[in-house]
């Protein structure tokens, strides 16, 4: 089970902020989310959205293990 976190406008779009989702890889997780909510799935793949796994930004696909934390980070606004 990965712990999935959404930030900023993604959270409002999805209607949730944090969920536990079973997925062996980031690609599998994206697939699960796009099947469930096409709008959210598109937004997660949108321009400027970064993904952090265990608080480190990753590119492309990576494997997930039990207890991985996956955060979708929309463009940052600064403080």
């Amino acid at each position: 089970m990965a712990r999935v976190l959404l930030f900023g406008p993604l959270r409002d779009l999805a209607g949730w902020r944090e969920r536990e989702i079973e997925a062996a890889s980031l690609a599998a997780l994206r697939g699960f989310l796009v099947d469930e909510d096409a709008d959210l799935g598109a937004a997660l793949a949108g321009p400027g959205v970064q993904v952090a796994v265990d608080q480190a930004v990753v590119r492309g696909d990576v494997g997930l293990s039990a207890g991985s934390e996956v955060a979708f980070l929309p463009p940052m606004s600064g403080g």
Partner: protein
Amino acid sequence: MIRLAEQPFDPGALLSEFTRGRAETGAVATFTGIARAERGATTVLELEAYPGFTEAEIGKIADQARERFGLHDLAILHRVGKIGPGEPIVFVATAAGHRRAAFEACDFLMDYLKSKAPFWKKEHGPDGDRWIEPTAQDHADRERWS
């Protein structure tokens, strides 16, 4: 010191602590950003961070500032959550041997914090809520350092 704060804070208390016991530091610059009321247009600002990640990302820029400007020390405190008009949002302090370095480092850190730091910002105004992005000016300010 790099820290997120859920509650209102007093920038003066942070400056007192930051200046205390310095014998070789000639210069301390600070910046305090305050939530503007905009004459009623914005009632509440809401700032979201990713705890742990946000401090770590700010820490990377802080390390750049230490090296680039030869800082003796720095402190950054950033509010998160709901912030009312007149409440401080951010406090940055920089300590250096001389004032040019202290000023420039403080300016540099603020330009980063305002345009690129991992925060997401929403305004709760009389006409509803909206997420806000850095302004063109914020990006232009940030470009000065590259």
